[in-house]
């Protein structure tokens, strides 16, 4: 039964095909029309700038796949940058300063997870609350002003060391994305994340401790925000109130662009990261073309919408080609699974 339709369905069903195609097409377009785009130094610069978003996108994708959403990551990233840099400025050892930052993130992740799971509260509202708590704490911590100037060269080297033509920060981001993707696909925990995201009730009936899985997803997301914060503080050697605000929205947009379903249960970390890369590439391309930043935020917004629509259409087409043969309940939301 290897008809054209079945084959097409298989091709369209390949995970991540839309996002990779989009990424390649957009990069190719800029490479051909904007000579400065292919400049290695510029590319390294803009990628380096996106590292924090990259990292929280990975955590965000995990949480969304687990059926939740973490709005606090941007603010937590900012706060972690603050606690970590302050620790370093007050003479803490490099390792201690890093642990303070990462620990701040992990603590917020644990708080999010426990409150959501134990008190059975809505993910959106809880993380919106902790977003404000973290943002407020950063204001208190910095006393409304920019803080800057650690003397610890080791701390500054964390993000700024060059390793095989890329910066250490970018390398860390890459390792995190690859590692989390591996966890999602190859570990029992990752499988359970997908199960819980597909539906808490059926996951429970299958004997999965859905609550614990979800708490862990939030802890990972928070911890990664902490890591992102440390890298940001190390790169800039300065932290100010409101830093990294809105990063969570970029991360959500990137994840959704990468095909992660906001309904939970479907998606991949690397695809979310590719979504993030696509947004960064668009931003960089337009910047080099001299488009007014205010205008290109509109263009990027439109790209997100178009991207999501195309991705969903391709997904539905793949599903309908693949399953309409057996059932005509092809599109997921419509009377799924009712077969004559």
């Amino acid at each position, binding site marked *: *039964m290897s*008809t*054209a*339709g*079945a084959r097409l*369905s298989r091709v369209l069903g390949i995970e991540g095909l839309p996002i990779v195609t989009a990424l390649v097409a957009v990069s190719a377009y800029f490479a051909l029309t904007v000579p400065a785009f292919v400049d290695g130094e510029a590319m390294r610069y803009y990628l380096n700038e996106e590292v924090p978003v990259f990292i929280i996108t990975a955590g965000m994708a995990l949480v969304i796949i687990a059926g939740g959403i973490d709005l606090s990551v941007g603010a937590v990233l900012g706060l972690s940058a603050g606690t970590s840099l302050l620790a370093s400025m007050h003479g803490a050892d490099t390792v201690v300063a890093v642990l303070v930052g990462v620990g701040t993130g992990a603590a917020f992740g644990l708080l999010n997870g426990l409150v959501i799971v134990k008190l059975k509260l809505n993910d959106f509202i809880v993380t919106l609350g902790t977003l404000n708590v973290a943002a407020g704490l950063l204001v208190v911590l910095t006393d409304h002003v920019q803080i800057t100037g650690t003397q610890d060269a080791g701390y500054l080297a964390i993000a700024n060391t060059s390793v095989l033509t890329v910066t250490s920060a970018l390398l860390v981001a890459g390792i995190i994305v690859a590692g989390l993707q591996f966890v999602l*696909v*190859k*570990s*029992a925990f*990752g*499988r*359970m994340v*997908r*199960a819980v995201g*597909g*539906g808490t*009730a*059926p*996951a*429970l*009936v*299958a*004997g*999965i*401790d859905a609550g614990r899985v979800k708490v862990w997803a939030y802890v990972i997301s928070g911890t990664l925000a902490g890591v992102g914060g440390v890298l940001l503080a190390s790169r800039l050697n300065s932290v100010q109130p409101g830093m990294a605000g809105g990063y969570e929205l970029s991360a959500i947009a990137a994840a959704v662009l990468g095909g992660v379903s906001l309904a939970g*249960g*479907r998606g991949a970390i690397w695809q979310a990261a590719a979504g993030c890369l696509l947004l960064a590439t668009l931003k960089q391309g337009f910047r080099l073309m001299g488009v007014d930043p205010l205008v290109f935020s509109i263009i990027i917004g439109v790209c997100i919408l178009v991207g999501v629509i195309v991705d969903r259409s391709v997904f539905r087409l793949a599903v309908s*080609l*693949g*399953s*309409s*043969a*057996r*059932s*005509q309940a092809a599109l*997921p939301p419509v*009377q*799924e*699974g*009712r*077969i*004559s």
Partner: protein
Amino acid sequence: MGTTTTPLEHDPALAPAAPLLEMSGISKRYLGVQALDRASLRVNRGEIHALLGGNGAGKSTLLNVLSGTVKPDEGTIELDGEPVSVEHPREAHRLGIVTIHQELSTLPDLTVLENILLGNESALGARGGVLVNRRQVAARVAPLAAEFGITRAELWRPVAEFGALKKRAIEIVKALAAGPKILILDEPTSGLEEHEKTLLFDHMRGLQHRGVALIWVTHHLDELFGLADVATVMRDGRTMATVRVESVSQRELVSHMFGGEAAELLAAPAAHRRSGDDGRQAGPRLRVTNVSRPGVLRDVSFDLYPGEVLGIAGLAGAGRTELVRVLMGLDKASSGHIAIDGKVRKLNHPRKAYRAGLAMVPEDRKQMAVLTDFSVAETISISRLRAVCVAGLLSGRRERTMARSFVQQLGIKTPSSREKVRNLSGGNQQKAIIARCLNTKPSILIFDEPTQGIDVHAKAEVHRLVRELVDGGTSVILIASEFSELISLSDRVIILNRGSLVGEVDDIGRRVTEDGIEAVKDRIIDRASRASK
């Protein structure tokens, strides 16, 4: 809207001969698979016409063509002898073709009247202004509603207050308010209790007397006799036979549906029964003592022995599902304890229940069992991931090998173990869920309505499987609303009534041979439906 523009001509010579509906040569191909292959359906006025076939036979596709949700590649539809094209559900509605779906589709927060009104605004004369005069509409709907047991006062109550039967009645009234010529009923008895089914059948006869043609899709062949006039049987997208129900046997219908071989399988006598005592010396495998849960369970105690099928009988709301949910750790008991193999266990989470050797095939496959986006292999392995791990990492190869052995053992029809479960038919989804449970090697397996919404063939296989399991020493707890199914599978039945255990009927096999199945059934129904002890 390329339909007939000429008014229907009434040719008196043609009218009696021509059927109300004639679908012929309907084909539909979905990339590679022939869902319908020159299927036909001919329905007369005032006829109850059963449409039968296994899962995937093409019944739904054919009816979707009729109701305008699927466009056929070929074929013609004639209504009252006039060719029509049904391009859109709205068109079908206008032509008087109305469907009542298997899943209850009333909106719980709206009142009965609002539900009936929904989509029927013009038919009920409610359109015209922005405001709908509800009182006027209520007065118009009331006589019709009364025929189906809905009082005038009830029209103003939210649908959420009513049970499954009344919801069904509301849907029927809603459908009738549209003035249909053809009413399609897809598994109308699902979710109804025995006595409610009888009432529904009365309603169906009432519809027939109003001259409405009913197309009735059902998996329950025993319901047909004495009710349906004609049955059309489909298989592999083709119309196999159209027969008068009074002149065929159930067995003939089954052989039309699945071919001769399957009929033999289904006709096989209920497997041998064990004496029932052999497991008892060892002591109970599960002992439930005074388990209560406020509002749903009161002081329930029972034992479950190795190698027996314990049926739990009761009407809706008796606490059957609630009881097994407590056993599985999905709900908490407020008092009482549960001992497994003599040891008291605290089962406050499903994970612990699985660890203690329990597993459950839940009711409501779609909501409670099927994990969206999981493949067959992933579905089967999820409750015991350790078994498919190599060095702490999931091994896709090991997982698929394991899944394939279950696919073979249970006869799960799937293109491959990588296929998404949601793409399988209901019966095969159920088998995948059963495989998932078996994979945990449970000593106690709970089946909650295991044959709901699956065809007779799959049903027979599930029954066979339950017997095999028990022969292998597994203990089974079975919930089935269909009393004949419960009796034919159980060794012993306990009866719940409003959360309390009100009786036990043991040694079912002997009683059935001595007194007949009807006597045993009556005895159980009597206890289960008695108002108070």
